[in-house]
């Protein structure tokens, strides 16, 4: 394959190619062999199915929200119902989709292979983590069936403890259990990276995907339990009427906010860091270059994990916290922008003078870079004290975090899913239609959320189901965009399933990528490797790959 052609895709001859006879998918048969599996790849697939289901549910809630906001009048749903819609949208999307999205599916599937291990360190705990996710998800579903919860995903006290009569405890229990699921995933990844690297796989030979997951896992392990205790106290306050957050008894509601955001700010990085990891892999592969400043990108992940714990109070600037402390946190918030910027700059330099090709994963990755930069820079607005007072609790903040979470994380997730789909299933997705879906998602996304920046700046508050008539034009644009975005997300769901049967046979290394996962068969064996690999090359070493291919041609041919 010459590097000058417009594509790097290198598929085996379709007339003769077949899927490998033995692989992890057909190693065992029957539903029980999946439900009781300890294979990290199968658990990754189970997670993939689970979060796709919950993404659909969260998406339906989002659609209903946008539909209600089509007109200024409260005509589709009552205000209580609307509160439940955005609460459940938040809970489902954050705890059931974004937090497990990349780490539990792609991370689970790929990290052991990328570092040359046969499995994660604790396969049974990995399975337990999936079951906890399912149980936590069931509690969330139960909340919906029982009549919903309307606290907002933040469970703000004293609203959640004293003023609402919805199913706060059920939803809280669900979040608590999902937290444990996330802790176990993180714990497993950390131990695996420390303990199961193959001979020769030094820290600085690891793909940046692994570094990003390592940093995110540290935050999962250290942050999530603080959320657990905060939610536990809310539940105890509702059921047993203890007085830790209750101002009537002398408690401080702001203490809940401190504990909640001590997790939930790092949670933002838990969600986005694995996405960074995906982007590093994709950008490198499709520009045929080593990631520029590998060490800087690796350490910026760790730096985000550290700084991420020092900035949570910027969610509380208007809640009556001390001005002096707000100043400190505002400055620290500026600091956390630095490692994110390092990543963006380094990816841009990777692209520079690279042999860039535009396959679907690359298109999603480029969308990510643009959209995440907008999301990140508007975060600077919100981190500065003066602007925050004006913009917080408006649609500006809604647009900001959707740019980071949907424009950033979801694009990265789709980039990764397309990129590793051939490895996971052995078959290619259809290229033309998937490129179209990437473009549709990008257009739909911007149409949905760009107007919300303007709406927020003009002062439209979030969390209301009615609004003044002068905001309607922008809201209609946003709802129209949401429809396009919905189509953009529905398309991959359809063609990826289609490709399971009709996709082209992908072969071992369709992208000619350097990662260890691309040097084994697709789909991989249950044991991943026939023999333990020994790594004697740096990450993203395309010359090594060319050399290896050359040798194979001379020895085999």
């Amino acid at each position, binding site marked *: 394959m010459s590097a000058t052609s417009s594509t790097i895709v290198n598929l085996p001859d379709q007339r003769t190619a077949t899927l490998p006879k033995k692989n992890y998918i057909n190693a065992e048969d029957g539903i029980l062999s999946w439900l009781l599996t300890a294979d990290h790849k199968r658990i990754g697939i189970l997670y993939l199915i689970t979060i796709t289901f919950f993404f659909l549910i969260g998406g339906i809630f989002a659609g209903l929200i946008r539909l209600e906001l089509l007109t200024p009048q409260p005509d589709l749903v009552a205000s209580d119902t609307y509160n439940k819609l955005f609460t459940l949208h938040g809970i489902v999307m954050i705890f059931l989709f974004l937090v497990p999205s990349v780490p539990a599916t792609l991370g689970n599937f790929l990290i052991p292979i990328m570092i040359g291990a046969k499995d994660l360190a604790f396969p049974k705990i990995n399975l337990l983590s999936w079951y906890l996710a399912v149980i936590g998800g069931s509690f969330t579903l139960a909340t919906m069936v029982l009549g919903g919860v309307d606290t907002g995903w933040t469970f703000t006290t004293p609203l959640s403890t004293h003023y609402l009569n919805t199913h706060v405890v059920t939803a809280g229990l669900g979040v608590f259990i999902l937290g444990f699921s996330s802790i176990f995933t993180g714990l497993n990844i950390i131990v695996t990276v420390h303990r199961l690297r193959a001979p020769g796989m030094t820290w600085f030979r690891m793909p940046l995907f692994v570094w990003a997951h390592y940093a995110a896992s540290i935050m999962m392990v250290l942050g999530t*339990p603080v959320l657990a205790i905060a939610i536990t106290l809310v539940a105890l306050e509702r059921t047993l009427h203890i007085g830790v957050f209750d101002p009537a008894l*002398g408690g401080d509601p702001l203490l809940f906010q401190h504990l909640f955001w001590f997790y939930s700010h790092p949670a933002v990085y838990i969600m986005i860091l694995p996405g960074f990891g995906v982007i590093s892999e994709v950008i490198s592969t499709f520009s045929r270059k080593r990631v520029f400043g590998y060490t800087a990108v690796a350490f910026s992940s760790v730096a985000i994990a550290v700084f991420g714990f020092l900035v949570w109070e910027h969610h509380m600037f208007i809640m009556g916290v001390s001005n002096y402390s707000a100043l400190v946190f505002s400055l620290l918030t500026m600091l956390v922008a630095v490692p994110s910027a390092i990543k963006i700059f380094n990816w841009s330099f990777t692209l520079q003078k690279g042999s860039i090709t535009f396959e679907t994963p690359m298109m999603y990755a480029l969308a990510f870079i643009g959209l995440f930069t907008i999301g990140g820079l508007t975060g600077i607005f919100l981190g500065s004290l003066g602007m925050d007072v004006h913009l917080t609790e408006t649609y500006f903040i809604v647009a900001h975090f959707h740019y980071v979470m949907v424009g950033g994380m979801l694009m990265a997730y789709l980039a990764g899913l397309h990129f590793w789909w051939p490895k996971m299933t052995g078959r290619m997705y259809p290229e033309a239609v998937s490129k179209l879906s990437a473009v549709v998602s990008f257009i739909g996304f911007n149409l949905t959320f760009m107007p919300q920046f303007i709406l927020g700046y003009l002062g439209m508050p979030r969390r209301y189901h009615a609004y003044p008539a002068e905001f309607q034009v922008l809201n209609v644009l946003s709802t129209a965009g949401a429809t396009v975005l919905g189509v953009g997300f529905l398309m991959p769901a359809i063609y990826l399933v289609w490709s399971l049967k009709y996709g082209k046979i992908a072969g071992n290394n369709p992208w000619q990528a350097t990662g260890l996962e691309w040097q084994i068969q697709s789909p991989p064996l249950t044991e991943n490797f026939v023999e333990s690999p020994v790594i004697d090359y740096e990450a993203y070493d395309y010359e090594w790959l060319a050399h290896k291919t050359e040798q194979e041609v001379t020895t085999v041919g």
Partner: protein
Amino acid sequence: MDNTIVATHDTHAEEHHHSLPQLRHHFETEQQQREAGTFGMWLFLLTEIMFFGGLFFAYLLYRNWYNPAFVAASNQLSIPMGTVNTAILISSGFFMALGVWAAEVRKQGLLVLFLLLTTLFGCLFLGVKYFEYKEKWEKHHIPGANFDISEFVNPPLNPTTHKPIEEPLSPDMAKKTQVFFSLYFVMTGMHALHMIIGIVLLGWLTWRANRGEFTEGYVAPIENFGLYWHFVDIVWIFLFPLLYLINRHPGT
């Protein structure tokens, strides 16, 4: 198809003369598996540190805000019971540590004995806790609708000196004793919950130890459970002075 990067020249599998049946396929050596287990357990304990950490911060905050209420409410707790319980829990941890040793030197009988002693002292701790909770119930010191602050506003008189045994609190401050008792019950309750989970696990481990599972060289479950049990001890080591010993020299 070549599935490897570079084939290893010599497989080291032959070097392990005896490998444990519990050695899982994705670890190369027992050593590696054991260290991975210990590391994983410690990461889990980090989550416990942060879980209790949130409670300890709440304690720090309210103790500074409502110091007189915390002093008065703390003096309601029984020092003898608290001290005895501390000693009981330390003993339980001591036997757990000996259990790890017994497993490592492969003495099955001793291991089972030490695990039973650990369980016994753990149950004793919970028993004492039960009597402490019961007393709070009778005095209406459980937070909630029946919480009674009269004892803090009008402390009982000392029979010999006919002076209040405690500095009387203003009704406003006396209400804040409820914050103390909320934290007291949540913190000791969470601790007790961890003890109960531990005792259940101990029962299971004892049963397995009795079948000789941990005295053939595979001690990881005993070792890692030991870490958990000692961590629960450590939580109590902090809870005891913070809850029981705030200010035990009234009148000065």
